[in-house]
């Protein structure tokens, strides 16, 4: 399985490293050389430098070979665009995006886009740690 990780901030980096450690083939794409260098030394997967919002970057990184695309940049709009392009233009079987705003998750779902919202997950975990019931929405 090949996973393309778009965005190598804290989230993209951790996901990429964890996937790599589990033996998954990974390619990480980010426009910042610094961000790519921040990957741990034990990560020897592929990296590609370029703006993920540009189709040519995704193409050159080999998006059409990817089985999964994870759009993890800090820009929700870019994440949506990457996921939609992956699934519709390059027939990538699965794309998951990082949602920044919990309020957007519902509408992303309506769009048929699979998303994970770290803020919501964090808040839920804190409530759980405090033994408080989870709130709806």
């Amino acid at each position, binding site marked *: 399985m090949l996973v393309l990780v778009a965005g190598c901030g804290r989230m993209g980096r951790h996901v990429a490293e964890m996937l790599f450690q589990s033996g998954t083939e990974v390619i990480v794409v980010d426009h910042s050389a610094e961000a790519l260098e921040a990957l741990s030394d034990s990560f020897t997967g592929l990296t590609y430098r370029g703006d993920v*919002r*540009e*189709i*040519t970057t995704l193409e050159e990184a080999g998006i059409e070979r990817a089985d999964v695309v994870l759009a993890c940049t800090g*820009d*929700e*709009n*870019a994440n*949506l*665009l990457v996921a*939609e*392009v992956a699934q*519709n*233009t390059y027939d990538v079987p699965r794309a998951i995006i990082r949602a920044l*705003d919990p*309020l*957007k998750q519902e*509408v992303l779902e*309506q*769009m048929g886009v699979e998303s994970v919202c770290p803020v919501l997950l964090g808040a839920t975990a804190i409530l759980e740690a405090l033994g408080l019931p989870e709130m709806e929405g």
Partner: protein
Amino acid sequence: MAYFLTKSLAGKGISVSVLNEDMDLCEAIARNPNILTVCAEQTDPRYLADAGAHRADVTVSLAEDDAENFMVSRLAKVRFDCPRTVALVHDPTYQRIFRDLGIDVAVSVVDILGSLLQEHLMVQAITDMIYIEDGRLVVSEVLIPCTSPSLHEPLRDLDLPQNTILAAILRRGSVIVPRGDTSVEPNDRVVLVTEPKSHSMALRILVGENNEE
């Protein structure tokens, strides 16, 4: 662009609302009491609702960022059932992709400006030109110079590119609908309908390479 577009649309009696983060821009637009102006993040569904996205017949997204325009157009479709979405595209490769992804009209500024400039620099013979269907079709009015390589040749013998037609010839005040045996004469103005990619070739045939004089 947003400022002048809203002004122009409102001037035509179209009901316009604006959602923009830029306070200065919003203040300038809001001077027109007929325009509902909401100063807030463009991609937030709540503010889109405040700006009347539920009632909009058309949503136009004009941000500098393609991804942002994509998000706004998708929200308009999915969340607000907007019948028609128009998005500005900066990276021309997105034009086709945006359409494939359900955005009704994707306008590529670079493509339109680029071909406009190219034509303008190359051929001063073009006297008028319009783009139709997001720039997929171009209609131009072209002056035939006395140096044209196609003078007195029946149109059917000209090697005009595919998907190109000469729709009309304007000659000394009268309009001629050309047929295969019609030919062009110096000082004719012809109405050319073609695809942008064939435009330059059609012009070379009708006008010639060197048309500076």
